[in-house]
């Protein structure tokens, strides 16, 4: 009995730690959804694209992925603004469904470009510290998992401060609560959308790097992260940082426990089933409005 509990300790700790990954992915998705009321179904693939670009830079120049972020974040930010301005905004003017379909097309394009550039083979970001681990009680935890958690905390704090303390952040918040009135206040909706999307992309870049350090990935990995991130948003409630954070932890936990009980298939199956359950039972989420 004590053994069983002790065994459980590993997935518990580990799940909560790498749940941080889901927090960051979900945050990007949530930002876009809150402001534009559109789910960017390409978000997961954009995260993986981040992983791949970090991989490319790592293997060709030996640049550490986390260092790469210094370049990657602004790069993705700009990419986000461009994608929003020239693709999604135009699509949304046609209809909400059109935006969804265009995002879907984008998703496929990214997947296949990745496949062409880096083959369908599964990759990982291997660094000198990839095999470091440390101890929490009886549990051995890979360094990457801890980094995921730390990153999530940092990101949540930074984004929260941005949204609460800066004019632009407040503009984004206002626009996601009442778009038309926000416009009447002098807030340029196009600019808000672009910035929100840019930030979401920057978050995707970060998530991509840490994902690559944590899990292996391949061109089609994006979908599963999209689905889980969506589940996190719904569970945690739209617009709530705390909710998103907790949601991420919970999904990380469910994945770890699923893997513990059912092996590699369980790792995905359990979170997916949870998403369906969450969608069915609580579309407002734990903390949402």
């Amino acid at each position, binding site marked *: 009995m004590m053994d069983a509990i002790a065994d459980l300790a590993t997935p518990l700790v580990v799940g909560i730690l790498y749940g941080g990954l889901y927090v960051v992915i979900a945050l990007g998705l949530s930002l876009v959804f809150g402001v534009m009321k559109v789910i960017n179904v390409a978000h997961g693939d954009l995260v993986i694209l981040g992983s791949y670009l970090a991989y490319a830079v790592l293997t060709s120049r030996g640049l550490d992925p986390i260092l790469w972020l210094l370049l990657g974040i602004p790069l993705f930010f700009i990419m986000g603004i461009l994608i929003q301005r020239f693709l999604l905004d135009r699509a949304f003017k046609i209809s909400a469904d059109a935006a969804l379909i265009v995002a879907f097309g984008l998703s496929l394009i990214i997947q296949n470009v990745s496949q062409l550039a880096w083959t369908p083979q599964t990759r990982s970001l291997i660094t000198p510290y990839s095999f470091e681990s440390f101890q929490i009680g009886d549990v051995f935890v890979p360094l990457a998992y801890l980094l995921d958690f730390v990153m999530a905390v940092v990101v949540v704090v930074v984004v929260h401060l941005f949204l609460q303390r800066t*004019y632009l952040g407040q503009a984004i918040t*206002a626009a996601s609560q009442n778009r*038309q009135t926000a*416009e*009447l*206040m002098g807030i340029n909706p196009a600019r808000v959308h672009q910035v929100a999307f840019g930030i979401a992309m920057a978050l995707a870049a970060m998530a991509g790097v840490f994902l690559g350090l944590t899990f292996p990935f391949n061109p089609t990995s994006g979908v599963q992260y999209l689905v889980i991130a969506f589940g996190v948003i719904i569970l945690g409630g739209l617009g709530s940082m705390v909710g998103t954070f907790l949601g991420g932890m919970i999904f990380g936990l469910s994945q770890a426990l699923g893997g513990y009980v059912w092996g590699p298939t369980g790792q995905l199956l359990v979170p997916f089933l949870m998403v369906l359950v969450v969608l069915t039972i609580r579309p407002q989420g734990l903390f949402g409005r």
Partner: protein
Amino acid sequence: MPDDMLLRVNNIDVFYESLQVLWDVSLEVGSGEIVAIAGANGAGKTTLLKTISGLLHPTKGSIEFEGRDITRLNAYQIVDEGISQVPEGRGLFPDMTVLQNLFIGSYSRKARAERKENLARVYDLFPVLEIREKQLAKTLSGGEQQMVAIGRGLMSNPKMMIIDEMSLGLSPLIVGDLFRVLQEIRERGVTILLVEQNVWQTLHEADRAYVIETGRIVLSGNALELTEEEEIRNAYFGT
């Protein structure tokens, strides 16, 4: 050519999704006036306001503010011209605090610099808002929410404030209080354009009024004189 009319709406036609809603509408608002637009539900009042605010654009005609043509401006550009709007249903940001709502009112660059002063002025008019500063907007009563909405409108130090359906869902007592505040706001130099379903109270508070019916202006003139008009009495007061 000098013109002491602050706002001029000249013969505008407005369509809403291929349906014409306003026909040849004209009105003017002078500096320092309180002007009301009265009419039944669906008469086109809100569409008119939305057009002045830049959320909609007329297919014919023009809108001038302080002699400048603002017809083609977008909503987010109107604030910089000196017009702020208090939308129908208050339009507050429900999950933001009273203070945050007010501060958004001074989002435009010009207003940001004077944020503190403007806030002090708003608290002067509405002391209760200072008390409820940190509360989420959605937890306030209807009357208090309207105060926040009006206060927020003042945060950009506007020359003219447009108020859409202030009395909706509020008791006559509170509406009376709010009208008193409007008079005070007017004393401080802000011109007011109101839209109201509550014709009786409005006509007793405004200087001039326009009556709009099915997208057209049918009557206009001194507000009090209008209350004597046979048509008005029949249509809106049931006498």
